[in-house]
């Protein structure tokens, strides 16, 4: 049934030194729950990897394994040729290169939008407050939130909060951006403004991994698509190709439900 899991598509050059992010045989157990059952993945510069699949299939866990918010039970994660699952890795330093945006925004509610962006610039990257301010304002402007820099998250709509969250991650100048179902908590009329920002980001050449239920986005923006089903890569390939010619029954069933 699962044909593609063990034989990566031609665009995946397993073990290549040019991979920005590489996952190797990643398993994750939560207690007795086996969520990821051996996932391999390699991402090159400018890849936009879209991860789709039924809920509970391990999509978010996979994404969180990339920035080691979840530590894989088995397997390795490589970032720029470094094994970051090694306990000696300075994860704080690695994470400054991996931006992540969450479904529930997770802005700090006691800080203004601007402060949300500058706090890590000042405290982690040790920028001066002037530099941090300028860089933060640039990124807020980039997501169309320049005029709301002084607002607290509670005063912003979900879409605006999510755009600030994207700016917060971008301001760290990450080498890869992870998006964990970032539009799932939004009212339908607010989804567009967030997707628009992500489309522009992909156009700018950002390397991205996107867990999403937005099939339109997956098809139009993704350079590669991963169908994650019951903890395994059920199928992967070029998004349009997968949409028009799904190889497995599981993917056909999945498309039948979501499209």
């Amino acid at each position, binding site marked *: 049934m699962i044909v593609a899991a063990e034989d990566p598509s031609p665009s995946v050059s397993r073990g290549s030194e040019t991979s920005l992010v590489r996952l190797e045989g990643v398993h994750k157990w939560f207690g007795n729950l086996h969520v990821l059952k051996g996932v391999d993945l390699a991402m090159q510069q400018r890849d936009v990897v879209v991860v789709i699949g039924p809920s509970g299939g391990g999509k978010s866990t996979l994404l969180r394994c990339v920035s080691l*918010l979840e530590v894989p039970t088995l397997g390795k994660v490589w970032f720029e040729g470094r094994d970051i699952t090694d306990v000696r890795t300075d994860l704080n330093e690695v994470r400054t290169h991996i931006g992540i945006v969450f479904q529930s925004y*997770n802005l700090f509610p006691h800080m203004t939008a601007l402060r949300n962006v500058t706090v890590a610039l000042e405290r*982690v990257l040790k920028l001066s407050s002037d530099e941090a301010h300028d860089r933060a304002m640039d990124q807020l402007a980039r997501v169309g939130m320049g005029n709301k820099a002084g607002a607290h998250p509670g005063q*912003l*709509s*979900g879409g*605006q909060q999510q755009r600030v969250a994207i700016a*917060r991650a971008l301001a*760290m100048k990450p080498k890869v951006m992870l998006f964990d179902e970032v539009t799932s908590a939004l009212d339908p009329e607010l989804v567009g403004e967030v997707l628009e920002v992500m489309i522009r980001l992909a156009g700018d050449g950002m390397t991205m991994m996107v867990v999403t239920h937005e099939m339109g986005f997956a098809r139009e923006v993704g350079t590669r698509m991963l169908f994650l089903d019951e903890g395994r890569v059920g199928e992967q390939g070029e998004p349009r190709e997968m949409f028009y010619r799904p190889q497995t029954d599981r993917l056909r069933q999945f498309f039948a439900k979501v499209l």
Partner: protein
Amino acid sequence: MAVTEAPLFEPEVAPDVRGPTAPLPATIFALGIAALVVIAFGVLFSQVNYAFSDRAMTQYCIDQQVSPEDNGGIGVCNIIEALRDPVTTDALYLGMGLGALSLVLGASTYRRMDSRRKRDHAITGAVLGSQGILLAVAVLWFRSVSPGLFAKHFLNFADLHGYGGAFLRGIRNTLVLAFAGEMGGIVIGLVLGVLTLSERRAVRAPARIYINFFRGTPLIWQLVTGYFLLLFGFGLRMSAFTVAVIVFALNTGAYAAEVFRAGIQSLERGQYEAARSLGMSYVQAMRYAIVPQAVRRVIPPLMNEFVILIKDTALVFGLGLVESEFDIFTVAREGQAATFNATFFTVAAIAYLVVTLPLIRLVNAVEKRLRSGLVGIAGAGG
């Protein structure tokens, strides 16, 4: 939840839909109020009347063990004589009757009331009436036993002349003790609270032991043992007052730790993850993202701890404070020891209320403000 451009509160008032009342429920309501008013007026009228008229000791008072030689004996006699004055008696029985009437009428008719307001009036009247009955029964019961014995020990204010300054100093010292203890406790509690959340047992265990020990033993034992331990065990030279502050801080620290732990745990895990994903260390995530939010949530429970500590400072009375350091309770106890008049404790209770009631009101107001969610503490909707 959409944009918050709209005002938080609509100025328009919701319409009153409780409907009209009617003579019967209005009467029940009035009867209930009348029961309480009659009882209160009758008792207070007699008390004021006796207190401000020139009276001598009576045989009844002497039978009630109030002696003419007692300092303030006449005042005590007035109190118990006023209690059995016909005006008081009539008011008590009349009030009971009114209360019973409103209770019976209200309880038997409220189901049939056809508007919300009628029903409210009938029920409220019955409730007030039953409160009147209880109040009257309590007063009748009290005066039928030995009111003189109680009054001469707890309501004889004559011996308190000259103690005003001492009680004011007591209030100040009580507040200093409690405030210093609370501040120390908050610092200790914040550290311990964070430690209890560690994923390492070696870090958690000592904090847990400390907290369980201080929560599990009596504060008075901690004070006495702490006194001897610090002064003789560790040979420190410090006053009993300082010892008390230290023990209060250690004790409050255990309770504050639980408050901080709960406050931090009540935050969404995503807040911590967001901070870590920006490259912050554990300590930075705590300092910039978690603790500032937790602090807001723990303010009301910590203020409650402060109110509790104000009352617990009474336990220092056995530590041998010097006179300028006396807290409210010690002032009262010294006064009582000198005069064998427990009215000092009655005044002490009033002094505690003077301090605690405004604080209790403040806590409630702060809680309400935080709950109304001013600057989106909960995060946000979407």
